[in-house]
């Protein structure tokens, strides 16, 4: 959810000063994504195509990296809803990015169980190592650092989600190694979710 960031607390706010998403380059699904879209829309009743807005936005985000006004328009046209309907959803859910993000989006869980196991120190170590603050992307476009709320793996705290993959039991002192490994090996550097890892054994 991201209600508060849109509401510029402490500053004068008027609806006319609302920030709209970047227009971005022209957008249409690739044929593969269009086929995926056509398949997933069938999961919902024919008169309820709007239900597919979240999966449709995920497709757009995977294709382009972030959501632009043109992507919003494309999704709205395909679903037969207004652009405002889609924008309403994009601005509410935190997993949609409305600005370009780095190749690796590092999302450190900051909620209680992770925090009491050192998540704040993990974030600090990442800030020191990469040289960006939470919410920022480094100039090379490699890393975006975010603090997120409970990821639901409190037994393997602190947890860092990197794009869609998980990295568990991240100690602050090992952050530097993780960052270097990610640069060298990509997502292969991550521990993964331990249940999945054990399942493959």
């Amino acid at each position, binding site marked *: *959810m*991201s*209600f*508060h*960031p849109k509401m510029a*607390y402490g500053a004068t706010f008027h609806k006319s000063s609302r920030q709209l998403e970047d227009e971005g380059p022209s957008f249409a699904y690739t044929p593969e994504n269009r086929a995926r879209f056509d398949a997933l829309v069938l*999961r919902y*009743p024919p008169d*309820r195509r*709007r*239900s*597919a807005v*979240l*999966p449709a*936005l*995920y497709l757009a985000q995977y294709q382009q990296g972030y959501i632009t006004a043109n992507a919003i328009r494309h999704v709205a046209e395909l*679903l037969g*809803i207004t652009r405002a*309907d889609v924008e*309403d*959803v994009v601005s*509410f*859910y*935190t*997993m*949609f990015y409305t600005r370009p993000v780095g190749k690796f989006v590092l999302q450190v869980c*900051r*909620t*209680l*169980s992770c*925090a*009491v*196991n*050192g998540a*704040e*120190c993990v*974030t*600090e170590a990442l800030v020191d190592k990469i040289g960006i603050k*939470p919410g920022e992307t480094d100039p090379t476009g490699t890393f975006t650092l*975010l*603090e*997120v*709320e*409970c*990821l*639901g793996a*409190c*037994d*393997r*705290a602190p947890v860092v989600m990197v794009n*869609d*993959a998980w990295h568990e039991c991240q100690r602050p002192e090992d952050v530097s190694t993780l960052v270097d490994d990610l640069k060298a090996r990509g997502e292969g550097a991550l521990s*993964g*979710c331990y*249940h*999945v890892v*054990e*399942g*493959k*054994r």
Partner: protein
Amino acid sequence: MEPILTKYVREPNSFTLDFYLQHEGYDALKLALTKKPDEIIEMVKASGLRGRGGAGFPTGMKWQFVDKKSSPRYIACNADESEPGTFKDHLLMERNPHLLIEGCAIGCYAIGAKVAYIYIRGEFFHVQQILEKAIDEAYARGFLGKNIQGSGFDCDVYIHRGAGAYEAGEETALLESLEGKRAQPRNKPPFPAVVGLYDKPTAVNNVETLCNVPLIVAKGPAWYSALGPEKNGGPKLYCISGHVKRPGVYEASMHITLRELIEGHAGGVRDGHTLKAVIPGGSSVPILLPDQLDTQASFDGIQKAGSLLGSAAIVVLDETTCMVWLAENLLHFYRHESCGKCTPCREGTDWLHQILRRIERGEGQMKDLDLLQSVADNIAGKTLCAFGDAAATPVLTTLKHFRHEYEAHVNEGRCTLPATWRARQPVGTTH
């Protein structure tokens, strides 16, 4: 009690259909299809199964309330596990996905639905992939789809991926999100059992709840309810995290006490430290103190002790935890996750967080304590969903039990318990 739901979770292939079928998998569905739907509802009612998502409402009654005159009807499985401290459904879906699929199918049969949507939180992408594969397997072998096992019963199960909203775990907000809107709660009544998804009768059930249904059908309600204390039957998954030696998911009968869970299963507080407080049911419930450890960890037991079992997310805190910091941490969560629909919650969570941050940084005044109390009291009970009460709870419960820590912050002008596991600098608000 021997684990039942999680009996095979450490086996390498426990998530495959072959493994599941070798261990009596889908027998309950086959048996259910030989009975009348009403019989299944009666069985679930007789078992006393209570919803595992947090409220503990009897599942059989929920299914009975589903309006059978209107159709189509739906099951919406709540897999949006996001209550801080909770990670049980995560384990079940990853290591025992077919149990959930079987539970969904039986649930659909019982209430006369043909479609179940599993609303899974967006962060569980790896879980979703496992679940999707399991659903494909189930279709291929005739446990989902048309004419299941030759019974004439059709059932589809679809996954719907959320996108990062705690509020989507609230049952009506979940339905809104499924309909392609913001995850904001609806006014109740009407309840989803009458007007739910697409305005049709819908049963919204937690993952663990649905996973219990095949057990009840296969082994009978009497066996099931005898597993736990009266009205708290069946196996229960407990998520233990925080300052313990062995955090994890532990399955037990609800006869078990908090002490047995924390000191037994989870190995107790880490070495050299002492227990300070326990949050027994996720961040939204009141704190229990060390002298209450012998409380029975059942819905009714914890309630009697003055808290709630909630999602059975037990967060253990040792003496290094500053309770003002804890309230600030949790209010940062609630401030961020408030859906913005009801003013007391939308504005109040931000106020509470600002005041708490001020006190934690040593910039607070004594009158801020009364202000906290007043703002929290003005949120609780004044919102459409339980989020408001949940957000007020960390403030009210820490003020009640640890007021002296708040006063020390004000008197000394600093945090009196700066633990080594916290940031060197006070953490700012990043979004």
